[in-house]
Structures are given as C-alpha cells and as structure tokens.
C-alpha cells in the first residue's frame, strides 16, 4: 500500500488561548514512503494526463471509421442523418458520433470489468478480511505491473485494491459523462478518452484477477498448472449436472466447496461455459469446461444440464426461456442479471430447494454465493432423476420432418452472421441426408438468429445441433487451466531476447468466439507461431477453442507444448480478467529487464513497449464490448490488436500509413536526432479478412524499431517466409523494414537484395527509439 489516511484524534488539548476537547482531524491520504521507487509524472492519471501521449499515437495511427449506422438516435433532437459529414442537431458529425459510440462501447466493457472486480474484492474482503495478502506467486516481486504503472501503488492487501477500484470507477464515470449530448465535440479527443477507458479496463482486470488468485488459491503464475477436461463429451451425463455460465466465479466456487464439504465428488458434475468455466477449473480442476460462450444454446438444448447457474457477462438473455424448455431450474446470482426472478437471498434454503424441485419456482435470484452453492447442489440431486436429461432437440425422424417445413426462402441465411448455406443443407435434410446440416455446426456461432428469422418456425439451430450430435459427443480434450501471471524469473529469461528481437514476438490469442469459420482457425494460428518459437499466450474463449482441436497424433496444443512464458510455449493465463497478465508482462519487461520505473510512469512504459516489445494481441472472434475495452488498453500501451473480419463491426480501425514516411520518425534517445524507423508496428487496430492474412500481419506487427539486426533478421525471416507461403509472393514493403544490410536474413539474401536495389534502398541507423523528447539523453548539436 502506498497511501494512507492521516487521522489525528485529541481527547483534550490545552493551549494558552483555548481548551479543545475531542478534536479530530483527518488530512486526506498521504503516500506511504516504504517504496523507494520514485513516483512518476502521472499517478492515478486523470482523463487528460496522458492526452499528449494519445495524440502522438493517434497522429500515426489515425482512425478509419466504417459507420455501422448513418444515423444518431441518442437524443430527442434526432434521429439525425449524419451522412457524409452532415452535422446532427447537437452539432456532432459522423466522425464524432462514431468515436463517441466506440467510447460508449469501451465504457461498457470497462465498467463491466470494474463492477466484476468490485464484487470480487468486496466479497473476498468480507470472507477473508481487509488484510488478506496479495499473493500472486513465488518469484514475483512486481505483483501488479498495471496498477503500479497507472496508480503508483503496490497493492499488498485486498483493501489496497479498493483504492484502485475507486479510481477506476471515478474515471469511467467521467468518460461516460463525456459521451452525453452536448459534451465532447472532437473525434480525436473521443479517441484519447477511448484509450483512457482501455487503460482503466486493464487496471480493473488486474485488480480482479490478483484478488481471486490471492484469496481463492488459483494457480499462482504456474507454468505447470494442471490439466482440466474440456468439451461437450467430457460431461458424465449419468450424473446430476450443474451448468455454470458467465464470468464471476464466486457462485461456481461455492458449488465446488459445498460438494467438497458433503464429500460428493464424483456424484455431481459441474461444467462451465465461458470464463466462469476457466475460473472454476483454476479453483478446482475437477470441474469441467463445456466450451466457449457460443456453446450455450447447443448444450442447454441437449438437455444435459439439470440445473443452470448464471453469474454475469456473456450470458444469453433467453437462458430462462431455454431452461424451461428442458425443465431445468435456473439460479441467477448477480444484481446485473435478475431475469425478473424473485429475490430469495434471505429465504430458508429448504424452501428454495423445494420450490425449485417442485417447479413452483422456475428460477430464483440468490445473491449470496455460499447459499447458491448449497441450493444448487441440493436441488440438482432431486431435479436430475425427474428430468431424465429431457432434451429440446429433435431425433432423426423429427429432424427430417421439420426440415420438410423449410420453404427455402433464405431468411435464415440472411440473418446468419456467417452467411451459412442453411437452405441448401435443409433441402438435403428434408431428403434424409443430415450430413450437410451437421457440417454447418463448425461455422455456427450459436446465435440462433436463423430461428428468429424463419417464417415457418423451423428450429434451425436445434436441427443443426441434432444433426451434429455424434460429433459433439466426441468433443473430449484437455486444457491447461489458467496459470495467472507471469513470473519475474520468466521475464528475466526472455526480456533480453524479446527486446533485441531474437524471440520474434509475443502473440496473445484472446477474446470471444464470434469466429468467421469456426474455432479451428485460432488453433491453427496458435500452432503456426508456436512452431516458429514465438511466445504464445491464450485466454478466454480463444484459449478454449485452441484446446478443442488436435493434431494428427490426437493431441492438442496444451498437450504438445509447455506452459511457460517462453519461446515455443503456450501460457493459458485464464479468464478474460487474466488478460491483464499479458499486458502486465510487457510492462514487466520494461521494469525487470530494462529497469524502467513503473510507478506512475505510464507514458514512458508505453513508449518502451511500443518501440521495443514485439507483442501482438489477436482477438479472432472478438464480439463484446469487453473485448473492445481490452483492446483499448493494449492500444494505449503500444500493443497492436488484430481482429477477425467481424471485428470490423467495432466500426473503426487505427491504421498506420506505411507510404507516409513522415509518420515513422522517432527520436534517437542518444542524440535527439529524428530518425526514420519504418512502419513498425504498422497498425494499432487492424481487421483481417482471412486467417492467412492475419498470420502474415501478426508476424509483421511484431517488428519494433529497437530490434537488433540479428533480431530483425529473424523477424523478417518469418514475415517473408509466411508471406511467400500464404500469399505466393515476396512482400512488396520489405525495403521499409530492412535498416542495415545486416538485417537481411542470410537465407534470403539474394532475393531481398534484388528488391532493395529496385527500391533504391539506403542503409539507415538503428536508433535508441523514443517518441518522448524528455527521454533524450543528449541533444544533437
């Protein structure tokens, strides 16, 4: 802890002029001085403290807006038509409106993580006390790099995280206020605020994860974290099954605790979907993971869950309706999703269980996680025999009969985000061949918009799931449970080769499962970079998708590659909030390897990461506002994010222009000279149409101005090799990335030298790169 309230109490004070009794003085809060690291320029930065840094980034990586809607409908002046730079009734134009919508998106995402963190911290303080220590693992001195950098404090206890969250809450309030009609007018200032929201999101995620790691006994930065089971087919359907969905692990953990206390392991299945599944396996790897968030409908309709527990985030809003169709009761556990259910938190447990078992209550709201644990376990034991795994999927005969109702109108296809050829598959099914329908499941994101669109009320999604039933039951894989943070000793080992470019990059696969062609593409991309000895990390639904694909030996990536933060290894850090450890690792490289101060020193740390740490985030199926906020935190830190084609729907990219030489100058910190460094990294937020394009771009975005010649040659080898293999041609921009002859990969020397001659390339110096003039050590004379 770095700051404390100063409180002075005096019962009686006699002076020459007065007698004072019960005097109490509180002098705000003062910084504790036990931490010798000096405080940088921006402790607890306000909305504007890092604006200058943002403007530097935004000058190079300018927003390209692709409006999702030409109108604004946020106030009663409208609707306003903003087409082609028309201004709305409030004076805002389409650029301002798009950036405002992105800021709202970021605020939604960040506030979700903040509220999640707040709930965790409050609950864990209540359970373990204010003084519960922050303990994120052995060999870790830099326990919270993001909080140190942004808030200038070292959190020692859970109580310290309250200060952090107070700050985050105040910032998001200010940011959201800026989106009101009649506030911010500049799209560039909106963009700066977007970056601020992203940074705040990272603070909250780190607070959430270090709180649960510290107080709940999750793996503590453990590269050898245990393996858990994942996949539809891992759930033992002969047992009563509780399905937990969401992101806040507290109710699911309490279920595991109650099972433990009643010695009922082996009698009840606890299976999870989305990040709660990650975190409950971090808490107890005997729990199982069904799959990513898009597995919700298919699993519920299969009838396998006997009782469903919802916490928060990424939960389908029709879960109660779907649960009723399979006669499974629902327990909602969060004030963010009450589903119009009665609040039974204060009721007698026997009564609640009886109501759920009898069907008198289709669901209940219980806000006490421990109570949820007992109610869920007791209820599921009685509900399961009654349900007999009653499902809401047609059998083969019924499937064919339902398919015959399809008129081939294509309304389903026109509602499908992935334009799946449903009518054609339905025609085959109507003739008894369900294989084409089954094959659609891989590309299906489980949204069921096809069903809502169908004028003949064909349950299209159910038919697809039913047709693919056999394949689903074969889903049985292993996943290394979320390890949490990265050890300082791991950073020491890889810091130098990363910064010098000899480890070609860190590639983080994050985010949701809104994939254009199924999760296999994420696994393929991850393996490509593992084979090339990049450092690969995973988290969230992407980590699950990576697990659900095997090689020719029947093993998946987690079984084939070590779990360390090292070249050729894959670290599953955990749930969404554990993404903070990846950004934190980049900061720790600045701190541990380069000995840069973190404390309240965000701008310098971001400058370091942008120019030196070849890290790239890949959110191939990014869907949510939270994913946008996570990306926002990476942008401000100088970490580029690549999204899949659906990511374009975030409505703006941050794109560099490699053809504009003036955009790619930095200061040489040794001399102060402005030096051209080429477009490295070329973009901050980029959407690829195909996985091949993403792979090539990831390799390119790992290049950084600080790469040594040896490092740049390694990175160029990967970039050129991938470009040739996947695009069939040598990249046409290679001259921009070769700085010295010694940068040219030996094996490609002849080929590249020819291009350099054609492009009239000249050698240039490799500077000590920075965008900050205050870091220039000696001015050029």
């Amino acid at each position, binding site marked *: 802890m770095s700051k404390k309230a100063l409180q002075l109490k005096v019962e009686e004070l006699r002076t020459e002029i007065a007698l004072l009794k019960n005097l109490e003085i509180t002098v705000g809060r003062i910084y504790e001085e036990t931490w010798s690291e000096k405080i940088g320029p921006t402790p607890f930065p306000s909305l504007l403290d890092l604006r200058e840094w943002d403007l530097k980034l935004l000058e190079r990586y300018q927003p*390209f*807006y692709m*409006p999702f809607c*030409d109108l604004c409908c946020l106030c009663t002046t409208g609707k306003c038509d903003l087409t082609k730079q028309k201004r709305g009734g409030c004076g805002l134009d389409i650029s301002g409106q798009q950036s405002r919508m992105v800021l709202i998106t970021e605020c939604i995402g960040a506030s979700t993580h903040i509220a999640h963190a707040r709930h965790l911290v409050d609950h864990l303080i209540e359970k373990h006390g204010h003084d519960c220590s922050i303990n994120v693992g052995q060999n870790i001195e830099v326990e919270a790099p993001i909080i140190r950098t942004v808030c200038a404090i070292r959190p020692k206890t859970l109580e310290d995280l309250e200060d952090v969250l107070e700050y985050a809450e105040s910032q998001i309030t200010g940011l959201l206020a800026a989106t009101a009609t009649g506030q911010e007018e500049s799209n560039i200032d909106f963009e700066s605020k977007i970056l601020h929201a992203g940074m705040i999101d990272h603070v909250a995620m780190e607070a959430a994860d270090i709180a649960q790691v510290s107080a709940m006994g999750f793996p503590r930065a453990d590269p050898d974290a245990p393996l858990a089971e994942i996949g539809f087919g891992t759930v033992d359907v002969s047992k009563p099954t509780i399905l937990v969905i969401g992101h806040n692990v507290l109710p699911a953990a309490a279920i595991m605790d109650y099972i433990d206390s009643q010695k009922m392991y082996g009698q009840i299945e606890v299976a999870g979907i989305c990040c709660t599944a990650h975190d409950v396996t971090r808490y107890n790897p005997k729990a199982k993971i069904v799959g990513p968030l898009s597995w919700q409908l298919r699993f519920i309709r299969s009838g396998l869950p006997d009782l469903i527990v919802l916490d928060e985030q990424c939960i389908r809003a029709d879960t109660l309706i779907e649960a009723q169709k399979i006669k499974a009761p629902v327990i909602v556990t969060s004030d963010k999703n009450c589903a119009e259910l009665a609040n039974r938190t204060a009721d007698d447990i026997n009564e609640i269980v009886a109501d759920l078992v009898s069907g008198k209550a289709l669901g209940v709201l219980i806000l006490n996680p421990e109570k949820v644990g007992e109610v869920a376990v007791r209820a599921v034991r009685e509900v399961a025999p009654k349900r007999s795994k009653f499902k809401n999927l047609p059998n083969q005969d019924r499937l064919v009969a339902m398919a015959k109702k399809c008129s081939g109108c294509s309304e389903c296809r*026109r509602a499908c985000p992935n334009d799946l050829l449903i009518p054609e598959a339905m025609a085959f099914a109507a003739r008894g061949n369900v294989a084409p329908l089954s094959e659609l499941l891989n590309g299906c994101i489980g949204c069921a918009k096809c069903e809502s*669109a169908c004028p003949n009320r064909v349950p299209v999604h159910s038919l697809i799931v039913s047709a693919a039933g056999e394949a689903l039951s074969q889903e049985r894989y292993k996943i290394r449970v979320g390890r949490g943070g990265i050890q300082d000793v791991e950073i020491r080992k890889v810091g130098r080769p990363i910064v010098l470019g000899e480890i070609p990059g860190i590639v983080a696969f994050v985010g949701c499962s809104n994939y254009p062609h199924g999760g296999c593409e994420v696994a393929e991309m991850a393996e490509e970079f593992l084979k090339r000895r990049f450092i690969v990390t995973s988290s969230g639904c992407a980590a699950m998708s990576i697990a659900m694909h095997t090689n020719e030996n029947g093993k998946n990536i987690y079984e084939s590659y070590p779990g360390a933060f090292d070249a050729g290894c894959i670290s599953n850090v955990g749930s969404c909030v554990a993404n903070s450890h990846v950004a934190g690792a980049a900061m720790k490289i600045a701190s541990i390897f380069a000995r840069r101060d973190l404390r309240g020193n965000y701008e310098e740390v971001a400058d370091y990461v942008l120019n030196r740490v070849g890290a790239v985030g890949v959110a191939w199926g990014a869907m949510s506002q939270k994913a946008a906020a996570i990306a926002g935190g990476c942008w401000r830190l100088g970490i580029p994010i690549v999204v899949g084609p659906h990511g374009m729907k975030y409505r703006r990219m941050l794109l560099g222009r490699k053809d504009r030489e003036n955009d790619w100058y930095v200061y040489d910190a040794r001399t102060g000279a402005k030096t051209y460094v080429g477009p490295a990294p070329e973009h901050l937020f980029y959407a690829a*149409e195909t996985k091949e394009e993403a792979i090539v771009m990831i390799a390119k975005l790992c290049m950084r101005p600080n790469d040594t010649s040896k490092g740049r040659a390694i990175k160029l080898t990967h970039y050129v090799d991938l470009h040739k293999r996947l*695009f069939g*041609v040598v990249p*046409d921009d290679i001259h921009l990335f070769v700085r010295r002859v010694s940068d040219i990969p030996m094996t490609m020397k002849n080929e590249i030298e020819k291009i350099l001659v054609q492009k009239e390339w000249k050698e240039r110096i490799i500077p000590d790169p920075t965008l900050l003039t205050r870091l220039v050590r000696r001015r050029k004379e």
Partner: protein
Amino acid sequence: MSKPEPWQKAEVPGPMKALVISKPEAVVAMIKSAKRPLFIVGPESAEREIAGEKEIDQLIQIAKAGKIPIVATSRAVIDFTRRNYDPALWMPAVDIANRLRDPKWMGVKGEGQHDLALFAGMQYYVEWLLLSGLKHFGDVRTVSFGRFYQPHANWSFPNLDEKEWEQNLRAVRNGFGRVK
C-alpha cells in the same frame, strides 16, 4: 430481379442508399468515363462459383477487357498469381479503403487518386463496412460487383440469383468489346 434490400436484412443503413444497377451497360459506361477506375477484389472470389466458373476468373476477364488495375486483398493475391495474372497491388482490405478516402493518395500507379472503385469477392459484411467508410469519408464513387445488394455503394446490383449475376457480369465484360 428482386427488390433492392440489403442481403443481410438487419444491415439497414441510413437515408443514402445505393442506386440499383438495372442495366449492366451503365457500369460499362461508368468505367469508360472514369479517369482512374480501380478493381478491389477479395479472397472470396476464388471460392465462389458462377455458372461453373470461379468468380475470380470472370473478374479477371472484366479487368482485362476494361483495362482496370486490380488490388487483391488478403490472400487473393495467391489466386491471381496462380492464374498468371499480376494484380497492380496486393493490400489488406482496410488499407486500400483507408487510402481511397485520402484525396492526397496517388493511386496504384502514382498518377492520382482513383475516381471509381469497383468491389468484388469479399464477405458481404466486410464489403458493407468498407463501402460505408468510403460513403462517408471518401470522394471516390463505388460500385459493388457482388451478387447481393450493397446499400453503402453508390451503385449496386440488386439481390440476384446465380444465373442473373452471371448474365450481368458477362454483359459488363462484353460491353468492352473483344479482349485481345
């Protein structure tokens, strides 16, 4: 021909919607009258078939007939080179759209910004979003060559069946006369 409404029905834009190409000859006239037309072709063109032929092959014939340079996006470049056709550039879709909105960009040949951009071979929603960016922020006129109505283009075919689409593309190609 069906009425012009977005293929993905929820992608309703705003008041300004693409004019429907009712006669392919109009496209030929637009291309002929343009100073610097540009074809932007995505990777889906190598996957989709039109009347037994890949879409990319039809587009190459049109580009050759109309002497229109092609920018291949994403992995499409490999499909062009496999057909011994060198696109003028290969570039990510977001990059070419970003350049087309910049009046100072000198185009694929360094001769100046393009005044007509023809889009084909992309996923529907990708093209939809790129065209939206250009509708609001660019001066370039845009034409969608896809099978489905793209409301953010200046000009688009309506939603067509495969046969109608093939007939339209063939008519555009023939509109330039015989290819030598």
